[in-house]
């Protein structure tokens, strides 16, 4: 008996793996296997209807380099991600700071700002197509009331990407706010009390105490927003379908179009793999940088 218990104690890690085995199987089946399959597909021309595939080597990747629409999609995706990460995180932090302090009706405001996050992206985007209508939309009506020039919004190749960014900030800022509120509430009051005693004003306390100490949470928010932004699809598909004039085409939309409109699954798989590499690379860089701002208190 003693011997058996000893063996169990010695090989505890076996049991750990046994307990996580179900999730490992599910994760492997639905995440790892499709990812590997996508990588394999990227070296083939595939016809899923005729169930045929033949190897083409690196041809799909070489085509990507010379595909102006894909290159435009990469540029648009990175631009979108940059704006979303910076603006949505900054706005989230500002809102979180406001709601961490005692604000009358704060709970209601928090709920209002968080509501878009739990709304279906597709449903919300459909509503926004009406709001953005250049002739009858709410936004232009409001601009007209204030005597401001109206915009073409999603009907213009110059304004469409910006319009999608505005929608996406509206959609994500609530989530960022909630996570950052949690981060800010973890900062012990004693730091702020010391700051007040030292004569630091509200702004100084924000930049010298709140921001550095909430940095780990902030980094999580940045990484989460980056990954989400690089995978943007729903709102683009509904609001603009990548137009006008490819002004809002993004990588995932191109993957979708190549796979399900042009039936080029191998080519779409190579796009997916490139996106995967971009996301992994950016995430690793962000993770490495984040270690500089680790804090403990």
């Amino acid at each position, binding site marked *: 008996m003693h011997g058996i218990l000893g063996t169990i104690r010695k090989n505890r890690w076996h049991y750990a793996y046994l307990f996580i085995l179900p999730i490992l199987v599910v994760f492997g089946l639905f995440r790892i296997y499709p990812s590997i399959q996508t990588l394999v597909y990227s070296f083939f021309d595939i*016809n899923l209807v*005729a169930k045929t595939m033949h190897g083409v080597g690196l041809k799909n990747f070489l085509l990507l380099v010379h595909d102006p629409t894909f290159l435009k999609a990469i540029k648009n995706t990175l631009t979108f991600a940059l704006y979303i990460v910076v603006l949505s995180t900054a706005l989230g932090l500002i809102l979180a700071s406001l709601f961490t302090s005692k604000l009358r009706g704060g709970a209601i405001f928090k709920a209002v700002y968080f509501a878009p996050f739990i709304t279906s992206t597709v449903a919300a985007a459909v509503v926004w197509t009406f709001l953005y209508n250049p002739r009858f939309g709410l936004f232009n009506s409001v601009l007209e009331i204030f005597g401001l020039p109206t915009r*073409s919004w999603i*009907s*213009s190749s110059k304004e469409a990407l910006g319009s999608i960014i505005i929608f996406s900030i509206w959609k994500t800022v609530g989530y960022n706010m909630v996570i950052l509120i949690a981060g800010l509430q973890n900062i012990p009051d004693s730091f702020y009390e010391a700051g007040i005693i030292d004569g630091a004003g509200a702004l100084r306390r924000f930049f010298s105490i709140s921001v550095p100490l909430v940095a780990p949470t902030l980094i999580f928010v940045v990484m989460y927003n980056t990954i989400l932004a690089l995978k943007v699809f729903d709102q683009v598909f509904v609001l603009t379908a990548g137009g*006008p004039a490819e002004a809002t085409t993004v990588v995932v939309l191109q993957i*979708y179009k190549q796979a399900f*409109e042009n039936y080029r699954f191998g080519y779409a798989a190579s796009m997916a793999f490139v996106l995967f590499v971009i996301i992994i690379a950016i995430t690793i860089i962000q993770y490495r940088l984040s270690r500089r701002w680790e804090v403990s208190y």
Partner: protein
Amino acid sequence: MKKALIVLALFLLVPVLFVTAADKKKLTLWYPAGDITATSMPFREGTDPWAQFEADNNVQVDVVAIDYDTMQQKLFTALAGGKAPDIGMIDFSWMGGFIKDGALVAIPAADAKTWMSSVSPDTVAVSDWGGGKMYGYSTWGVDAYALTWNKDMFKAAGLDPNVAPKYWADFRATSKKTAVTDSTGKLTRVGYAMRHTGQPHGIVDKWHWLLVGAGMQLNSDQFALKGGVAKINLPDVRDGLQMAHDMVWVDKSSSLDFPDPRQALLSKIASMQISELVSITVRQPTEAPDLVWGFSAPPSPRAGMDPKVQVAAWNYSVFTQSKEQALALKAVAWFNNKDNDYNQAKKYNSTPRYKENWAREPFASAPSTKSFLDLVKYGTTYPRSLALNGILDAVGAAVPKILHNEATVADALSLAEQQANDAIKALQ
């Protein structure tokens, strides 16, 4: 005791019901939801257009509405998963892609021959996949892309309300004359409403009159499933697209803020638009009952050149994955027979396909019949190329780039030509 007997009778009846249900065969038909095409009206209304066929053949036909924007993809995904419907009401421009993958059943040669000899030339044009081969029956209400205009607006602008502009120069001048701006100079009504957003296929559909009218060849060989050459970057095409661009940015008689041409005409915020005649015909009585409108062939580049009217159609096709192919073929043949053609075209105030039906009332003496037949004399269809998807994607991407100043006319067309020919070569 009586109750017990009733329960027993019901109990005994249950297996009988199952046997009856099991005997009944089932066909599934997918059609585009919403008002994307007036020809899906029979499925959108309360009455069952399949009732007679179901009764005669002990079959149940399930009609399933599929969102148009993703219908092609959903069909493809269903095919890839081996779960395609038996019958699809599919867009003409999708057929090449499905035929390429062997997904559509060819209509039996004898039936195809009978159809071709019985229907009018515009229907032949959208049914023939080369040498009389057919992969589906085109619907009634063929999609003829016509210039439609608001007669009251023409009159108010001092134009003859019954005469449409014939050539590009007249068309441009008419657009300028009928556009309206408010006191701040903002355009409140366009002379010509142009499509510049959405799927590339839809964009080419709406610009076909200008592109093909100017000599563009989406494929030099109309009936070649593989091969051929796309001739896109041509002088007249460049001139035409430059004109369209200048109508927005120089004349300011059109605008990119009116992206739905049909709706713009029906909402009276456009005096002219060019799209499927059948849609305006079916929608106008309910959506704009007081609209007085006319239709004619779209303008041609100049005197001596014929206009081009795109003729397209939705098709009832049978998928090769159907386990009831023979029954499905019988169903589509029945649905598109002469009597159903007559009854449906009459019911929806549209155009029939059979020559005999054109000779019957109300079509024979309807004032619009002659105008329609005059219109489809200029009919052209998309090439049957299996690379049509890629070609339309290329051209459909070029047009908005020009209209939005994202590329010069020459650059946009040059790239489109290269991409279209790449798509053709990829299938050789």
